[in-house]
Structure formats: C-alpha cells, structure tokens
C-alpha cells in the first residue's frame, strides 16, 4: 500500500511540474496580484503595512484556486481512474494523495513566497516565521477543501468557475484566522487563539475532505 501511495504521489508531482504547469502559473499569478496592490491603493507605506496581512491571505486563497480544475479532471478524461481503482488504494486515499501532491506543487511554493510578499508590502520582518507557518497550514486547508470542490464538479463543463463558487465560502475561515493571526502579532495581542483555530480548521479539512472527495468521485465515476 505504501509503495503504491508513493508511486501515485511521485506521478502526480511530476505531472504538476511537467511543462511548467500549475506551480509556476500559480506563483506568477500570486506575485502579479501582489504587485498590483500598491499600484491600485497607492504607495503609502503606512496603509500598505496595515493591509498587508489581509491582502496576502486573500491573494493566497485566490492563487490556490488556480489549478484545482485540473486536479481530477485530467485523470478523469484519460480514464486513469479505471487503473487507480483496480489498485490497492481506496478512492479516498487516492483523492487525499492527489490533494497532497497539489499542495506540494502549488501551496507549498505559495507559502514559501508569502513571508517575502508580506514583508515587501510592509509587514514587520520578524513576523516572517509565523507567517510562513500560518501560510503552510492555510494552503494545506485550501488544497484539501479545493479538492472537495474539484471532485464535486468533476465531469461538468465550466468546472473552474463552479469550483471557485463552491470553494471560496469555505476558504473564509482560514483567511480570517490567518489574517487575524498576523494582525494580532503586529499589535502585540496573543496569537495562540488564531493559530489554534487555523490549525483546527486544517485538521478538520484533513479529516473530512477525503470522505467527501471519495463519495463525490465514486458518484462521478459510475
């Protein structure tokens, strides 16, 4: 079971990175979006540093949406699920591994960029470590919840917009906790509560999303 899981993870990662697909696109989108912030709001350093955490989290959520459409769609069209289902892994595990690969290929890279982007916009440098941890947890929740959206829209045309509509409401809690965490840090308020809630949401997504994705995939693949 473990070799099969590793083989699937390796395959999905190599597919994600082939032809500069998802990861590069998402990273480019994230940077471009963040570069537009000072252009649209003006270069006033004080304003920017006040809104930096919130905007960063908003852009992180949007960038996480980008490659979700292809998460299951590609393998669905190529009939790869027929092969995957005759293997040793349950559909729930297959879906979870695909989300994990999606996170390693996209979310992880976006998370690594988050502290940099936040500091460029004027957040304090000593918040870098905390913002990285928060972004890692947040982007993992985004990938898992996004996987549920992708599996629910599997087989429908115009899946991309539909995924965004389905998934964005569930991106709200991590955005609130993540941005709140940074605000709390900057203002010197206790951070344990926001960090705890962010982690709890990540665990919630980790526990429930495989079940939801398994059920949605099973119904789409019948």
């Amino acid at each position, binding site marked *: 079971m473990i070799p099969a899981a590793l083989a*699937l993870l390796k395959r999905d990662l190599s597919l994600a990175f082939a032809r500069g697909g998802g990861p590069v696109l998402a990273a480019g989108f994230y940077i471009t979006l963040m570069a537009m912030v000072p252009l649209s709001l003006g270069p006033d350093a004080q304003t920017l540093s006040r809104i930096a955490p919130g905007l960063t989290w908003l852009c992180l959520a949007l960038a996480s949406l980008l490659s979700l459409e292809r998460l299951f769609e590609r393998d669905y069209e190529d009939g790869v*699920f*027929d092969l995957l289902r*005759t293997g*040793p892994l349950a559909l729930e595990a297959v879906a979870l591994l695909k989300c994990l690969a999606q996170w390693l290929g996209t979310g992880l890279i976006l998370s690594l960029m988050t502290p940099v982007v936040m500091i460029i916009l004027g957040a304090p440098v000593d918040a870098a470590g905390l913002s990285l941890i928060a972004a890692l947890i947040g982007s993992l929740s985004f990938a898992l919840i996004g996987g549920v959206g992708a599996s629910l829209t599997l087989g429908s045309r115009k899946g991309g917009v539909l995924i965004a509509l389905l998934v964005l409401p569930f991106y709200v809690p991590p955005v609130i906790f993540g941005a709140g965490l940074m605000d709390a840090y900057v203002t010197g308020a206790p951070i344990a509560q926001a960090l705890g809630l962010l982690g709890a949401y990540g665990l919630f997504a980790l526990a429930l999303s495989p079940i939801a994705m398994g059920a949605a995939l099973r119904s789409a693949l019948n």
Partner: protein
Amino acid sequence: MPFAIRVEGLSLKKGYKLLISDLNFEVGPGECVALTGANGVGKTTLLRALAGFAPPHAGSIRIGDDNSDDSIVASNSHYLGHAESLSPSRRVDQELSFQCEYLGGTAGSLAEAVGKLRLNSLLDLEVRMLSAGQKRRLSLARLLMVERPVWLLDEPMSPLDTEHRALLAGMMQAHLSDGGLIVCAVHDPLPFETRELRLTRAEVGEVVYG
C-alpha cells in the same frame, strides 16, 4: 486459489435506464466468457460492474462461495476499458513504471512485459505520440506485469494489427491455462474456445427511478 465469479440476478442501470436485468452467469477458472451484443446493449456497463466501479441496481456479484463485496473483485482484476488510462504528456517508461509500482509488480515483471509486447522502441516517447494500437499494447503490459486472476477486457483487439492480435490471443490463452479467467467484450469471435454470453436488448428505454 481457484477463482470464480458468480453473478446472480444482476440488474444494471446507466443513468435512469435499465440496461441489464436479471442476468445470471458464472465464470470459473480457465474459462473465457465472450460478451457479445449490439452497440449500447450494456457490455461495458457489465464489465465496469464486474470490476466494482458501479454498484449493481439489483442482484449480486460474488467471488467463489464467499459473500464478498465488489471491491474484492476490483483488487483481483485487471480492467482494460476504451480509455487507455494513460496520461498523454508522460513518457512510456514513466507510465509503465508507475503502473508497475502502483499495482504491485516488480522490475523483473516489467522488463518481461516490455519484451513480450515489443515496447522497447517506444520507451522514450511521450504517450500522445503513440498510435491507438501502440497505446493499447502499452495498456496490455499491465496484464503481464502484475498477475491477477480476473481479466476484464473491453474490445481489447480493436486497435491492434493482425500480428499483435495473435500475440494478445496467445497471452489470453496462457492466462486461461494458468487458471485465470477472462470476461471480454468482443464483436469478432476470439481465435480460441470461449463461452458466448449474448446480451440482448430486452428492456431498452425502460426508465427506473431510485
């Protein structure tokens, strides 16, 4: 372990349409069932149900005498459908080694399958550059790479040339003589002894809710 599939009172739906109703048959070790019937009569639907991809509307699919559930058929079977289960952007050798690792084959069995199906010259090509017949040969490799008692094949011969049809027929016969069993949807008869299961269009268009 001697392996047998027993299908009792099986009814299958596609969407709301009842395609197959009250079907009974058995496949024992060393036996090949050739599924025949007009287009759209439910051959693929039956094969997918045998693989455990879709739950039956009614009836049961069992292995041997056990009251086992469908997923056990899936992990004991190879399913080769119309779609080749290959990612167009990956190289042939990547796809083969992924399938081998995922399904639990060994490097030795992989090399053997590559040799038998003459895939050597294709290994460094991307899947999307292959012809339909070459893709099918690539899919056939997993039958040899990982030994499983049940082969569920959906028109396996159609894109192959004469030479490779003979090769596949040989593979199927070898599998049967090893005690494996095959359920195979076909339009042209297979070049060895099979038991024909002809699906007829009895209830076309009957709509079932629930």
